């Protein structure tokens, strides 16, 4: 055990060193050094996750509005999978981008986003969490648009708009929930939310604000656009680690476990189920392997939303629900990370046996996501069903069946993903790329082993539970379905011709946006830019409109402005004096 005085230093380094190196990569002189050290930095966070004593808090009253970093059970799980995934992705990225002239810029954003991700996991007060959440979100923009293609810029635009919307929703929620401007520690906030007069508004804003990050329907539209266009290691951390920041935000800020909220419970369970099925169905129609994975993430986050819904139901259910959510987050982060990194590895294979090794390797996380027996997915499903036992509102038997049905869908989607892989796409690599293979292998081993470290029950009992029929049949049915589709091959390929564009409902939104943009360009923008004549020339307008326009133009003259002010003031005062 490291002494307590070293702890804060280690924590600072885990958050701060990536930031320092991020700045370093941009300096001509220190760039190569920073780049060499970059992949090692998440190990600091992993060290914190392993050695820091539970329920320790470091208070920094001079920082921001009194910052607090801390370690509790939630932090530990999040920190472990976050650090593990970022480490593998970091080493992977160094090999993946070895020929990319802009790799220093990539690592600058990569490290900044890493710092944000680690910082928000360690944060124990609202403002610090919000700070690192913003850092991570804004820094990821650089990862999304890294390739500089049209699609990347489009994805980046959608992403950044939703980030800003999310930030605004969150900060509004924070304004409403904190008990005082300087009282921001989580311990004070969560109980304040439960008792807040505008609780439902706060919950709605929080759900939506973090829901954007967590891919909650219909705020998920950025995910299937951004994950495929980002370089593969960035997709892995986006879809594995950063997406979980939304879940962590829900756990930290929602009044889950603080009372009984049947309405919100039902809402979250409904939204989670919807996402679980919607993600699978739309994912099946995709023709890009990474897009299919992105939709799978939306689907899997649905299960975590269900766990939050159980937590809303009653304080009794919350301990079981939160441990299910944590296990799910851990399992999904590692499995999805391994799948994404695998996409890049497949592109590098040069011969038959390598391809078979990679496919066999990819089968592990794919089966895990489907929840096959003995995998981390089965552990997570088990935990979720345990939590359901505490669900007080109704007999949730049908819910369990729906979850199994979703697992069938996941199995088929994973089969579809394997079908969509394109081996040897980047076969210009001269030799076996160890820089890609080794991090991927490490992550694969983590998928197999690490989740078991976080199971509290005796392993023997858990193993026998995962070997139940209810774990077998969804995977079996899924495999049969996928096999049948494969056998009658044409239909399987035809799924792609359904052509649900990635970003699905975004199409309607973009249509509305472009309509609005047209209106803005032709009508409002000239007006706002002070070019009334454009307006007057283009439209035949009625006398009233002309008068309004003329008034706007004449605001430039003092006398009118002054008169208007007095008039405005007069009216306002009148309403308050006599009203």
């Amino acid at each position, binding site marked *: 055990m490291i002494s307590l005085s070293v702890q804060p230093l280690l924590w600072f380094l885990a958050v701060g060193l990536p930031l320092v190196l991020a700045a370093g990569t941009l300096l001509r002189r220190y760039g190569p050094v920073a780049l060499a050290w970059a992949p090692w930095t998440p190990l600091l966070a992993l060290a914190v996750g392993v050695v820091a004593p539970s329920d320790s808090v470091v208070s920094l009253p001079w920082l921001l509005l*009194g910052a607090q970093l801390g370690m509790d059970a939630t932090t530990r799980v999040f920190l472990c999978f976050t650090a593990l995934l970022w480490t593998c992705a970091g080493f992977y990225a160094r090999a993946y981008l070895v020929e990319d002239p802009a790799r220093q810029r990539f690592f600058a954003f990569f490290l900044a986003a890493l710092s944000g991700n680690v910082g928000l996991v360690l944060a124990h007060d609202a403002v610090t969490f919000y700070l690192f959440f*913003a850092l991570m979100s804004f820094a990821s923009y650089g990862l999304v648009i890294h390739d500089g293609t049209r699609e990347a810029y489009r994805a980046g635009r959608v992403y950044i708009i939703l980030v800003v919307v999310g930030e605004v929703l969150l900060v509004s929620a924070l*304004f409403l929930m904190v008990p005082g401007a300087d009282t921001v520690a989580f311990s004070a906030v969560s109980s304040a939310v439960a008792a807040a007069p505008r609780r439902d508004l706060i919950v709605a804003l929080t759900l939506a604000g973090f829901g954007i990050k967590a891919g909650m329907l219909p705020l998920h539209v950025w995910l299937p656009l951004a994950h495929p266009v980002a370089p593969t290691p960035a997709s892995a951390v986006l879809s594995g680690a950063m997406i979980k920041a939304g879940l962590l935000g829900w756990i930290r800020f929602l009044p889950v476990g603080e009372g009984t909220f049947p309405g919100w419970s039902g809402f979250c369970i409904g939204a989670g189920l919807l996402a679980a099925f919607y993600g699978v169905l739309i994912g099946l129609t995709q023709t890009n392997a990474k897009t299919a994975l992105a939709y799978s993430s939306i689907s899997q986050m649905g299960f975590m939303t269900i766990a939050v819904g159980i937590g809303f139901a009653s304080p009794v259910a919350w301990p079981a629900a939160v441990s299910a959510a944590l296990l799910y987050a851990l399992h999904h982060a590692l499995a999805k990370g391994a799948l994404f990194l695998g996409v890049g590895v497949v592109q590098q294979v040069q011969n038959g046996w390598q391809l078979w090794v990679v496919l066999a390797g990819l089968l592990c996380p794919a089966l895990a996501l489907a929840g096959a027996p003995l995998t981390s997915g089965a552990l997570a499903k088990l935990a979720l069903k345990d939590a359901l036992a505490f669900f007080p509102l109704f007999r949730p038997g049908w819910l369990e069946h729906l979850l199994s049905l979703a697992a069938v869908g996941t199995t088929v989607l994973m089969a579809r993903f394997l079908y969509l892989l394109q081996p040897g796409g980047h076969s210009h690599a001269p030799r076996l790329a160890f820089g890609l293979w080794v991090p991927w292998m490490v992550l694969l081993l983590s998928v197999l082993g690490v989740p078991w470290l976080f199971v509290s029950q005796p392993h023997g009992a858990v193993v026998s539970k995962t070997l139940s029929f209810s774990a077998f049949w969804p995977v079996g049915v899924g495999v049969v379905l996928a096999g049948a589709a494969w056998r009658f091959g044409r239909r399987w390929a035809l799924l792609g011709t359904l052509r649900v564009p990635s970003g699905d409902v975004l199409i309607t939104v973009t249509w509305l946006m472009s309509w609005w943009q047209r209106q803005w360009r032709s009508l409002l923008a000239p007006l706002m830019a002070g070019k009334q004549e454009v307006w007057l020339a283009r439209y035949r307008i009625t006398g009233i409109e002309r008068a309004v326009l003329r008034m706007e133009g004449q605001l*430039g003259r003092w006398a009118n402005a002054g008169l208007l002010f007095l008039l405005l003031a007069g009216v306002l005062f009148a309403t308050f004096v006599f009203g």
Partner: protein
Amino acid sequence: MSWDTALPVLVLLSSLVPGLVIFFLREEQSRVRTALNLAGAVVKIGLVGIMLWGVYHERHYETRLPLLPGLDLILRADALAMLLTTLSAGLWLVTTIFAVGYLEGSPHRSRFFGFFSLCVTATMGIALAHNLLTFFVFYELLTLTTYPLVIHRGTPQALRAGRTYLVYTLAGSAVLLLGIVWLHRVAGPFSFTQGGALSHLGPQSHGTLLVIFALLIAGVGVKAALVPLHGWLPVAMVAPAPVSALLHAVAVVKAGAFGVVRVVYEVFGIRFAADLGVTTPLALLAALTIVYGSLRAVVQDDLKRRLAYSTVSQVSYIALGVATPGSISSIGGIVHLVHQGIMKITLFFCAGNLAETLGIHRVSEMNGVGRRMPWTMVAFTVAALGMIGVPPMAGFISKWYLGVGAVEAGQGWIIAVLAASSALNAAYFLPILHTAWFKHPTGEWKEEHPRGRFEADWRLLLPSLVTAALVIATGLFASTVMSPLTWAKLIAAREYQP
């Protein structure tokens, strides 16, 4: 005359004397001029530092000059005054360095720096003024000394802008004077009092006070660019960049906002003003200004124009915070006096640097400029993110207190205004950042000077880096003893004393 009574005057003299001497310097004596300017600025910072220390330890610095029987000119360093004095003294130094670099080789520099120093003197007077009469005298002085700065270039466009500026501000002053005289007839002579000086007046004069409040706010509202009195500000951006920087951050606009603070807190008093029912209309007006300014900013292609409309919007945060009755909102409004100043001056320094070094005036010309001038754009990015309200920048602290304060005061609608404003700020700042950092340069820039050791003249670069560092520091270390936030809390605590 003891030290304590002399100090406020000395603070004024430290810029007045250099200013007057500079008028008599020949154009080519640039070393002497620069030395005088810098010496004045450094001395002023020293004096302000002493006063700051003293005020923190509850010492009183006051100078009284009898003018008419019953009417004194009073300069007094109270906590609120120190906020603006410190800001002005600090930013005057960096702006002077910037201006020396910016105007190198251009004509009429003695005239420029002379008026520049007078302008700062007037701002100091406004900050230290302890009654409405003193405030008005320096307020007028500020109008007259900034006019030559606005028209400095002497182009027809500049002259037109100067005329607009003068018409607006002089008319505003007339209204302000009317309000002051009327108020003195109603209430007799009084000086600024924490918690208000008018609460002894009976209900029979409340109707009159309503009108007087409107007149006073209209008077200071012109400089604070409250909609619809904001018309002069976007026009005045034809002035040289250091003038715009000073105008938007510490001098004119800030003087107006400061006037709003004084009128609401120390003439009427926040409780009395709330009882009169004038705070809500003022808050609505500020909210309207915030949204309207942001909407206009979104569509401007000219960088300085966009920044000007952004000022219209951001300065009204101060009025909004002041007009929301509740100590947390007050803290937010008061602290934004400082935060808006350092953020906006950084943006104008960067805009000036881009224009002077590469000839860039429009957002559409900024493609890939981050590669050519990375440090400038780092400073710009920091300040822009601060304006949006991203932590840990200074702007976040302001917004945080305004938002939490709105809830405390039961004015939930303000959160919607803040949310809309943040989204709009992002809408007009983030595209600039994307353009500068991620787009590829479309062509050669007009490099106005041969490239030196740094990406630009260090006198243009350093000030923006210093203020950008301040933007981060004031936010990140907001809870430390000498931060603007702590100071604003002190002021608010005194205002809300029972």
